[in-house]
């Protein structure tokens, strides 16, 4: 038996013993685990599952063991995911810390920062949020103005962030701040870690056109952030920021596939058959059917392109912009087709007159409008393709 097969058997045995029964059932939204100081566990087995996985470092399987990670190589990580998938295990932990911050701390952080933050991220003890956008700095992120003044042993932070997902629930924030007001805009930015419990930090949730959302505004009024919480070199935070955005765009591009991204998971063809009726098994209305077919064909070709990018080893570097652009535009199109197929049933806001699924689709349709804005607008992605791939002049 190969080493990898031995490993697979160990994983399988460990999971059999340690994954609690209810963690192998389909996830219900209120039992989603994000960890943190103030985590509430509706189901005590979610807490147990997190503790056991965190102890093994398998919430972050590829991070080094010395910082609490699983220390697995690429093949072993794949085996772990396959075995988790096999028993239909729920994710033990959802975490911006693991998805976005940890890779940056590994690459740009110093030894103390790694020892201080990584284990807590991996065990789900500290929950992180991302402080990037500001009211005056959306697409032009590098124009951000939240300032961090050098006060000797600490920075004094003043300003406002917006679109901070789960800021009201997070323990710490990784934020871009301006430390070099005299420098050109890209070279005066630093990457700073701030405890949300610090005096002067406050948050306010944002209601979207789709209703409640995890987004918040975050305010900093004379917040003191110790100097040791600067990641990398002062004024070189833009490099880290760009790296991190790439992770985010890759994640969002899955929105182009049915069942991926923000949405209700409903399939446009079955929705159309249900609400428009069937004619010999076909969507009864010819022009709706044509529009949906066009959409599904584009989706098929897009899915093949994601696959090809993987098969080529992801060497197309501008791929993340293309996928972000195409995927999010496609997701918007999907929900437009969905509500138009549903007719007046696609317009429900609350329960009077509409089923839960119908309301969910209306809300999802509205939520998709943000897909092509968050993580860099479609127009910004097209700029990136023009400049970096096609090498067109600026």
């Amino acid at each position, binding site marked *: 038996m190969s080493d990898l097969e031995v490993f697979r058997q160990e994983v399988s045995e460990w999971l059999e013993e340690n994954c609690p029964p209810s963690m192998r059932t389909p996830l219900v939204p209120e039992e989603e685990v994000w960890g943190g100081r103030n985590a509430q566990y509706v189901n005590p087995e979610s807490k147990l599952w997190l503790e056991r996985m965190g102890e093994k470092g398998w919430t972050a399987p590829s991070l080094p063991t010395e910082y609490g990670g699983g220390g697995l190589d690429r093949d072993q990580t794949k085996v772990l995911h396959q075995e988790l998938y096999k028993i239909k295990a729920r994710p033990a932990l959802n975490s911006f810390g693991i998805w976005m911050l940890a890779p940056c701390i590994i690459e740009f952080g110093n030894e103390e920062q790694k020892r201080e933050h990584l284990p807590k991220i991996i065990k789900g003890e500290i929950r992180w949020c991302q402080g990037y956008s500001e009211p005056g700095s959306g697409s032009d992120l590098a124009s951000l103005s939240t300032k961090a003044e050098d006060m000797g042993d600490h920075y004094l932070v003043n300003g406002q962030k917006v679109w901070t997902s789960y800021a009201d629930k997070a323990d710490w924030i990784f934020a871009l701040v301006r430390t070099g007001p005299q420098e050109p805009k890209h070279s005066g930015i630093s990457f700073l870690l701030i405890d949300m419990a610090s005096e002067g930090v406050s948050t306010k949730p944002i209601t979207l056109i789709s209703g409640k959302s995890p987004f918040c505004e975050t305010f900093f009024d004379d917040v003191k952030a110790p100097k040791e919480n600067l990641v990398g070199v002062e004024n070189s935070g833009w490099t880290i920021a760009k790296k991190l955005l790439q992770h985010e765009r890759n994640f969002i591009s899955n929105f182009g596939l049915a069942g991926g991204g923000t949405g209700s998971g409903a399939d446009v063809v079955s929705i159309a058959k249900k609400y428009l009726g069937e004619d010999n098994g076909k969507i009864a209305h010819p022009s709706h059917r044509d529009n949906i077919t066009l959409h599904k064909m584009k989706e098929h070709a897009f899915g093949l392109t994601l696959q090809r990018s993987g098969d080529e080893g992801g060497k197309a570097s501008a791929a993340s912009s293309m996928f972000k652009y195409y995927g999010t535009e496609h997701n918007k199109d999907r929900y437009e087709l969905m509500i138009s197929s549903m007719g007046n049933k696609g317009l429900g806001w609350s329960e009077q007159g509409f089923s839960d699924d119908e309301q969910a689709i209306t809300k999802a349709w509205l939520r998709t409008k943000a897909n092509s804005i968050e993580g860099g607008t479609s*127009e910004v992605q097209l*700029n990136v393709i023009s400049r970096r791939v096609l090498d067109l002049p600026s």
Partner: protein
Amino acid sequence: MKLILSEEQQFLKDTAQSFARDKTPTNHFRKLRDDGNAKCWDDSIWQEMVQLGWSGILVPEEFGGSDFGIAGISVIMQELGKTLTPSPLLATSVLGVSTIKLLGSDEQKKNYLPKIVSGEATTALAVDEGNHHSPFDIEATATLEDDKWILNGQKVFIIDGASADFILIVARTSGKKGESNGLSVFIADKNSTGLEVSQISTADCRNYANLVMSNLTLNAEALLGEVDIAGEIIEQVLDLGRIAMASEMLGNTEEAFEITVSYLKERKQFGVLIGSFQALQHRAAKMFCEIELTKSAVLAAMHAADENSNELERLSSLAKFQAGETLHLVSNEAIQMHGGIGVTDEYDIGFYLKRARVAEQIFGTSEYHQARYADISGF
């Protein structure tokens, strides 16, 4: 199924790329057109392709070919498509070979395939009878009388029909127009009595013909394989043709786009390069995305064909659809972005537009394949 090329396929692609650059740049096509060459391909260039083994890529080794598959011939067509190189590859080495290989008896394969491999004979496949591609709407008839097949009817828009040595004719031996049952394929020498072939003149200046059969009389052995059951095989052959065609169209698209992007980087107006205008940049970036999708669809379809996947029909329709939509977009934008020079005959970009619209029609437009895809998928 991995969506990458094998080493052999990449090698064929590289060889074809050098061939097209060195021997048949776009000027080669321009010269054929200006000289009024009726075949619209160059015999000596075709013989060089034969020497490289391209005529026999789909032919099994026992009949002298290399059996390299649809992916092999498609990547060659993609590269030749970049410089608009005309050749009998599609009509002879894809359609002719596949029809004979999939339908013919051993005797018939032995008789025809080696002649195709050696470059001695070219073929054409005559299917359509109306203004739009519709492979089962066939009224041409073949009836057996005293051990002879008598064919009557007409065929249109036959690729390479004006010069092919042998024409493969799809005719109805039973059933009604629209049915896939009751179809048979006959192979006829171009000089047969009762067969009148007339070349037609199309915007892309390639070789097409219509034909009329008036009591065209053929020997019993002119029937390829068995009677009445060719419908399914014809559809399969057409799918292979669609994939090869989609690949050529991808090549057309890539080159038209490349030429256009280069132009955006050299043409100045208002004192700046026009490629600095965001109105043009975003349209170029969108074309880039569609080209990437086309590459994936074509690659998936060619691999599906070579792996005998049950997804062949759906993927072939997806590839022809996506290639058609993208070439349509890029050929129009290419002209617009070139401005005045783009509508002159002196400049090559117009060739791509004219070729594009004809290529879109061949074996079904995007609308045709959209409808087919919807039916196959059960939408």
